[in-house]
């Protein structure tokens, strides 16, 4: 049976992990490769690297990091952050990334989804959508959730699916950082409407939240950052909890 996926997300700046991590076994807390290897050994199903570097050299640094990660770990990983052209994607996939994720650049130029999917196949194109509820309506936001757009989240999700996205990474900015649970209602609505997998992000605080996002939120995968980095929840205990709760999971 196909299992639900648990995906730790690592924020990267200039080739280093930025969000503080609380792993005593790490010799170098800022080394993304070492952290990635620990997560992979602990049973993470996939990893996401989100690059938040803002310098011109970023592409080269990121590609070098991707190569190091690809050489070190034996599970799939996605790379996102500032990717806007077919060439950007080519460089990262050739460096060894399994998938790339695009966000603001897709909102700015939706056609890029078609172009990337045609060139590399849908399976490696993840479209990340940041959403925020404004007066009862879910709108797509860009620039880390700061900038509102006029796109309705459900409509945009359908459009990116139609344009050839292979997966959607949906982050609820209303839930992100609250540790009060995922945005299950919206996730379920989108997951039901779309024929591609949906990765839920934003709001994980307890193990029960993961169970809820898979049962009520109908998510295919769940992503979280700080609760894993600070070891509030360990991946092995989370996976055995989910398995005991009759969620299909890889142990």
């Amino acid at each position, binding site marked *: *049976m*196909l*299992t*639900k*996926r648990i995906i730790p997300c690592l924020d990267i700046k200039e080739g280093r992990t930025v969000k503080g991590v609380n792993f005593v076994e790490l010799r170098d807390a800022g080394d993304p490769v070492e952290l990635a290897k620990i997560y*992979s050994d602990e049973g993470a*199903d996939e990893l996401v690297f989100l690059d938040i570097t803002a310098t011109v050299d970023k592409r080269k640094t990121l590609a070098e990091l991707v190569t190091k990660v*690809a*050489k070190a770990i*034996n*599970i*799939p990983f996605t790379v996102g952050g500032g990717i806007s052209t077919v060439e950007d994607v080519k460089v990262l*996939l*050739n*460096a*060894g990334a*399994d998938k790339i994720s695009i966000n603001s650049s897709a909102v700015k130029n939706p056609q890029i989804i078609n172009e990337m999917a045609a060139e*590399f*196949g*849908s*399976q*490696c194109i993840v479209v990340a959508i940041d959403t925020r509820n404004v007066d009862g309506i879910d709108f797509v936001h860009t620039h880390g959730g700061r900038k509102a757009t006029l796109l309705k989240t459900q409509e945009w999700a359908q459009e990116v699916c139609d344009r050839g996205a*292979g*997966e959607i990474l949906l982050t609820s900015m209303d839930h992100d950082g609250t540790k009060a649970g995922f945005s299950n209602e919206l996730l379920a609505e989108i*997951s*039901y409407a*779309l*024929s*591609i*997998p949906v990765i839920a992000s934003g709001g994980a605080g307890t193990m029960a939240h993961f169970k809820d996002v898979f049962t009520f939120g*109908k998510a*295919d*995968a769940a992503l979280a950052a700080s609760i894993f980095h600070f070891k509030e929840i360990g991946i092995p205990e989370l996976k055995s909890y989910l398995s005991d709760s009759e969620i299909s999971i*890889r142990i």
Partner: protein
Amino acid sequence: MNIAVIKYNSGNVQSVLYALERLGVHAELTDDPEVIRAADKVVFPGQGEASTAMRYLKERKLDTLIKELKQPFLGVCLGLQLLCEHSEENDTECLGVFPVKVKRFVPENSQEFKVPHVGWNELENLADNPLLKDLPANPFVYYVHSFYAELSEFTIAQTHYIHDFSGILHRDNYYAIQAHPEKSGLVGEKLLNNFLSV
């Protein structure tokens, strides 16, 4: 040991090279028929679209070469599909090493079954085969695909998604895995290691 990884217009071959490197073997990415012929083992990876891949192989006469090889040969993902007889992906005649048809997943209930089939799923009904030696019962492997090979007499492990399909095929010196062993953690490493020892 000389391992040749067949170079063609397919995505993500780098991961296969890295995975072999992690196992301590050096593999050469090549489309040179002489190098491929002389290799101890041949790996045929792949991600992409069937008709484009077949056209590329034919243009370089790699299609006939692949069918003539005698050493252990491992197709991965699209590599498995191309070793079959025919693929529904753009109605493509494939290499025919396995007399098996490749079909598209058509979910009856699209709310429950998304296509592509992405993620970790189990290999079941494992045959007694050197490629599957010392694997745990129902091991998990990582899949990303929209087309699948039907069950056949050459199926040595199957997976269930919507229905059962061929997870791993074996005929003579040809082995083929639909999942990505290079991305399937320790189970994937074991599969690749077993292939290196067949």
